[in-house]
């Protein structure tokens, strides 16, 4: 594990205009995350967890404060610049899987690679993608569409997609929220297993305290502010 922060969050604030006046959902949040570390962000619904994740991943602009990811200050980049950072350095796993329904499992996994302009046929990308799908247990489902897969299978495709561009950091938003107990457990093993294998930094937003404890660090969130920042109990 390197001591260099791959993610640096400084005095991050997000305010939304509403009919009743400005609503601040994040209050001057600051923290660093070293490369290869794993972080869980926990807190009740509406506490600002997902907003924080979105800002850290460059999916939205903060009202004030800054996010530095892999050495790039996201608030200084325009939308296309942030898109490039997402494509090069970030992987995502969403609670509701977010596969593209019109693409097969393999095509879904290939999207981040193809977005870079790389030809799937020309390089090893397709082989990597197939390997990843095999690794998540979907070696025989390459050509299946999302609608033909179960929830757990869809989430595994999403996980393969998240790792295909060898991201420096993986953001997971309630990755097991839509899965049953056994499937969720298998998914968790896959996430942590791949994370270890590939040396990826992990940021996990979850309600599940047991899952959060598997991370090296746990930040508790309430009303848009950090209430505690403690080490977790990761498995050896």
């Amino acid at each position, binding site marked *: 594990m390197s001591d260099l922060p791959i993610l640096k969050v400084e005095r991050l604030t997000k305010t939304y205009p509403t009919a009743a006046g400005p609503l601040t959902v994040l209050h001057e949040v600051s923290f660093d995350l070293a490369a290869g570390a794993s972080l869980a962000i926990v807190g009740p619904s509406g506490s600002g967890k*997902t907003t924080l*994740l*979105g800002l850290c*991943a460059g*999916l*939205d602009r903060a009202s004030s404060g800054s996010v530095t990811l892999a050495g790039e200050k996201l608030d200084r980049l325009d*939308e*296309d610049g942030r*898109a*490039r*950072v*997402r*494509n*090069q350095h*970030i992987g*995502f796993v*969403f609670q*509701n*899987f*977010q*596969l*593209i*329904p*019109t*693409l097969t499992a393999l*095509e879904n996994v290939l*999207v*981040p690679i*193809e*977005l*870079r*302009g790389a*030809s799937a046929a020309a390089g090893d990308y397709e082989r990597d993608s197939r390997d990843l799908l095999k690794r998540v247990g979907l070696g025989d489902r390459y050509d299946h*569409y*999302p*609608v033909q897969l179960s*929830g757990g299978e*869809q989430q595994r495709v999403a996980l393969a*997609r998240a790792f295909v561009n060898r991201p420096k950091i993986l953001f997971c*938003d309630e990755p097991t929220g839509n899965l049953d107990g056994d499937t969720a457990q298998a998914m968790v093993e896959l996430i942590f297993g791949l994370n270890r294998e590939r040396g990826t930094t992990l940021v996990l937003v979850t309600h599940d305290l047991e899952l959060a404890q598997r991370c090296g660090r746990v930040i508790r969130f309430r009303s848009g502010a950090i209430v505690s920042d403690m080490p977790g109990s990761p498995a050896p």
Partner: protein
Amino acid sequence: MSFILKMAWRDSRASRRRLLLLSLSVVFGIAALVAIGSVSANLRRAIDEQASGLLGADVIINGRIPATAEWAQAMAAPGVEVARERIMATPVAAAGATQRTQIRAIEGDFPFYGEFDVKPADALRRLRQGGNVAIVSAKLVEQLQVRVGDTVALGRARERFTVIGVVASYPGSPPQVNFAPAVAFIPFAALSPSLGLRANRLDLRLPRGLVAAEFVKGLKAGFPDSGLVIATADERRQQLDDGITGFDAFFHLVGFVALFLGAIGVASVVHVYVRQKIATVAILRCLGASGRQAFAIYLLQGFALGLFGAVVGAGLGLVGQGLMPALLKDLFPFPIHFFISWPAVASGMVSGLVICLLFTLLPLLTVRNVPPLAAFRSALAERASGVFDPWRVVIAVSIPVAVAGFAVWQTKSVRFGMGYAFALGFGFATLTGAAYLVSWAARVFFPSKMPYVVRQGVANLYRPQNRTVLLLLSIGLGAFLMIALFLTRSELMAQLQGPGGAGRPNLLLPVVEGDELEPVTKLLSDQGAPVVLQTPFVQMNLLSVNGKPPGRRWRLPGAKDTVLFATHRDHLNPNETVKEGKFAGTAEPGAAEVPIALSPALRRGVDPVLRLGDIMEWDVQGIPMRTRVTAVLAGSPQFQMAAGRRYEFIFPEGVINGAPASYSLGAHAATPALAAKAQRAVTAAFPQLEVVDLSAIFAVILRVFDKIAYVIGFMASFVIATGIVMLVSAILTGRFQRIRETVLLRTLGASHRQLVLIQLVEYAILGILATVVGAMLAVGGNLLLAHFVFKIPAAISPLFLLEATAAVTLVTLVTGWLANRGITNHPPLAVLRQET
């Protein structure tokens, strides 16, 4: 680029059938533009190839030919070939029948160009050899029942000529054989003075390199007071070309309506499609796609589908073009040969593609503003369409500019083009406004005490993602166009059919002298065609207009005096209206200034300066008279045709009644057979009289009009087809949106009957309202057309409107029912799983 292409292709897989609707929406509009553009190119080439043939010469000169050495010298210019003609009207008799006939005595190589379609083929050569021989037109053969080898008697002296051929068509003959006058060609040398008054005509062929316009300019400059009327093939070509331009513009605009309607359908399909793709776009953005890349994926899909629609439309248009010459052949005085005009095909495709893309871009711009965060929070997706985007303003402005630009381009008139664009915009805005009104009314006056299915059906009108605007637009615009077309058609038909019915005249005798009046009236009555209209007219000489001598154009070619005809009456004729001023029915004899009215039959083109308040001084058969124009009348085609063109000025009763008058008579025969019998009897007893059988002419006009109506209907069918595609598309996109709701209702226990009824209630309300609004627009448009364009009274049949409303509503219901068939049979689980 490779990613965009791949993604556009892959992403379209699940929606291709739905996206096909996008292509289909523009197919018929593009087909109409390609068909009409290509036909128009066919017509223009036919004109270019055959303009000289239509006249038979490069230059035609009518009038009193100067008998001077200068004239002879002008005609003897190197390379100029001259053919002389004398033309007169005289009775021709054979086997007991007589027909007033145009006699054309020809000399030289007439016609220089074009086809003289005569049987036997050597007849024209024999005619040029001279002698008392005649080539007669098919019309004369039909009327006199003569054959080649028979003898006919020409003129009052009954000079005998042998028929040596029958001519079916010749340069200048009308396309419809029934419009063609009875004509007999005879050798110039066989002319005798007994054949009556004649007009002179010269046909000229100019040498290559001598421009007709320059030659004519020289003639006019050299003989300024000759009063000659000179026509050139180039002018004729220009006239025909102008006619084609009008035809072309009208049908292009009809085609454009189909395209416009389809483009609205495109916008609607894309709008729904984009809403369904927002989640995909958000995911792509999360994975690193830029807004431009995401936008490019869907723009590429839109372009590809538009291009597919353009190609299919062009193919369909060419099939339509193949059918058009058969429909048009009787409307143009030349054969139309089929060829594919690639510039017209390209122009139709590009116009269609540009309009399609503009209408695609408007809803597609939303894609640019989908935030990646929408992958987490679906509520953010809704905000994407509300984001201010300056490009949206650019496209929103570009659409009306493109529509107006297209209309101006096609009509070659800023006024008409803008008027067309405004009318289209007005119809669009009215229907959109009506749709919002319906949504608002459905919410405010919600029928809370009605059964559940009615409440649910009414609620569908205002709920989020309702189809109210789209369905009202598609059904309403379609109904508007169809009803307007039918109303105008039936009004024009009623006007044209008028003289044949209800005791109105269908036999016209334009000139009957005073001493012939009584015997002719009696003869007509005996033949079962009593005189129903008797109009006196008095010949008079116009001395001045507002103190100045009348221009030369008022005079007949070569005439010294300005002889005109006036009638007197104290009432307006049926279908006549006062356009300006006040009609004076009576005046005191000997009044210092007599109020007169300008008849609708006045040849306005002759002297357009005549207007209300002008002072005209006359010599009424020796008596000077000062008059003032106090009324300008308007009238219908029926009136003008029945009235002939003899009397152009209407005097009040009591002023010129004493002057020796001639009469124009109108008789009514109950059947065309009786009319023909009466015509034969009058021509036999009074060969000098011209008898026009309006029933035959009207039958031909009706046939021609039917043909035009058929062509219009053919073009309108593209609009109707687009309307149906749009209706199906609106219903199908609604079906995709509603399938989940239907499944939920099904899961909660709704019966098949209830689900169908909910949909039918919605479509019935929309169908009725759209047709009512469309019909109101059609009635308004029809009133304007009738008043300003056709100048006929509008006749709106409430029964027809009721029938149209019922028919369109029925079509909407049936289409809605067919398009939604099976929606209630979807397994709920499958639909619910699709949401993942």
